[in-house]
């Protein structure tokens, strides 16, 4: 019996507030309506906390989304989305980002069976596909600005650059995070803290794909509708 255990018993012999049984307060508790409950595992709590952050991020994106939806007609005599957007590019970007999200999922499976090689390999694929997406987007922005369709030209273009650019910025930061995670997995291995960071990275990357679904539907495809 460890010292901590003895102290614990002396302070709280009946484990008040620690469920019904078990040492270290880990006994089974009764979660109303859910049968046997208990303290949620750290992984569940980490995921929940990060999910709250992601939802707040989604709410922020929804503001840009609303701004775009309202200002899409305000072209001020400049180019409209229909004239600017290239379908092949949107399709390629969508494919890259979806494949990247899938690769991130495979990396998570590899992590769950503690395979260093496959985790790193799939994280690498995730990063390369994400970089391809980012390259196409940067090229698109540059070509718009070269055509004179810069953010200051019209309300539509301001909203477009702000919304799509904000997503692009998230992807950029995600790539930095991804590189950091690959280095951390390499150096520190599959520690609990690293596993939780990988979980959060996965949630982040998949959420960016969800936001992209909204972007390619409303920004790009709907602009092509007569």
């Amino acid at each position, binding site marked *: 019996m*460890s010292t901590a*255990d003895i102290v614990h018993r002396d302070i709280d012999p009946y484990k008040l507030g620690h469920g019904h049984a*078990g*040492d*270290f*307060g*880990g*006994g*089974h508790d009764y*979660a109303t309506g*859910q*049968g*046997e*409950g*208990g*303290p*949620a*595992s*750290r*992984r*569940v*709590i980490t995921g*929940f906390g990060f*999910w*709250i952050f992601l*939802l707040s991020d*989604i*709410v922020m994106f*929804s*503001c840009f*989304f*609303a*701004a775009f*939806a*309202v200002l899409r007609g305000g072209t001020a005599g400049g180019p409209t989305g229909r004239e600017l957007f290239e*379908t092949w590019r949107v*399709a390629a970007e969508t494919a890259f980002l*979806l494949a990247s*999200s899938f690769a991130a*999922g*495979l990396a*998570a*499976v590899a992590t*769950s*069976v*503690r395979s260093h090689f496959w985790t790193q390999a799939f994280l690498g694929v995730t990063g390369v596909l994400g970089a391809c997406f980012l390259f196409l987007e940067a090229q698109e922005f540059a070509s718009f600005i070269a055509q004179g369709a810069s953010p200051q030209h019209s309300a539509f273009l301001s909203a477009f650059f702000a919304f799509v650019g904000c997503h692009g910025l998230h992807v950029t930061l995600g790539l930095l995070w991804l590189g950091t995670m690959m280095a951390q997995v390499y150096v520190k291995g599959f520690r*609990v803290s690293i596993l939780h960071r990988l979980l959060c990275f996965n*949630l982040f990357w*998949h*959420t960016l*794909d*969800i936001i992209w*679904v*909204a972007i*390619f*539907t*409303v920004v790009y*495809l*709907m602009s092509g*509708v007569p």
Partner: protein
Amino acid sequence: MSENGEEFGLNSHDVAPGVMDAPEHSIRAGVQGYLIGLGLAVLLTAASFGVVQTNQIWPPAIPIALVVLAVAQIGIHLVFFLHITTAPDNTNNILALAFGILIVALVVGGSVWIMYHLNENMMPMHQVIPAQPS
């Protein structure tokens, strides 16, 4: 929850409660989930692009079709990639998601609704422009 119970037994005095999870050992099940998700997402994406490209659909129906396909795809992403499920350990995630959807619907729906009516009630631009000093 039973794997948590085991941990608090004899062999784990060095970790805090709830830190370790039993690793999921089934590669097949994991990969299968992601493959199903990818397949459905590709189908829905292809359908979205198809709806815009084809001229077989009555044009006013296209935006509605696009929204329906996008919502379906977001659902697929949530279930197969983000693993938001109806399991008891996911209740809090579901509640947070429901709140997020509420806020997003208020922000987007409210903005579009209000600004649409504002535009409707504005004086037409060709009457406004001559009135301005030039």
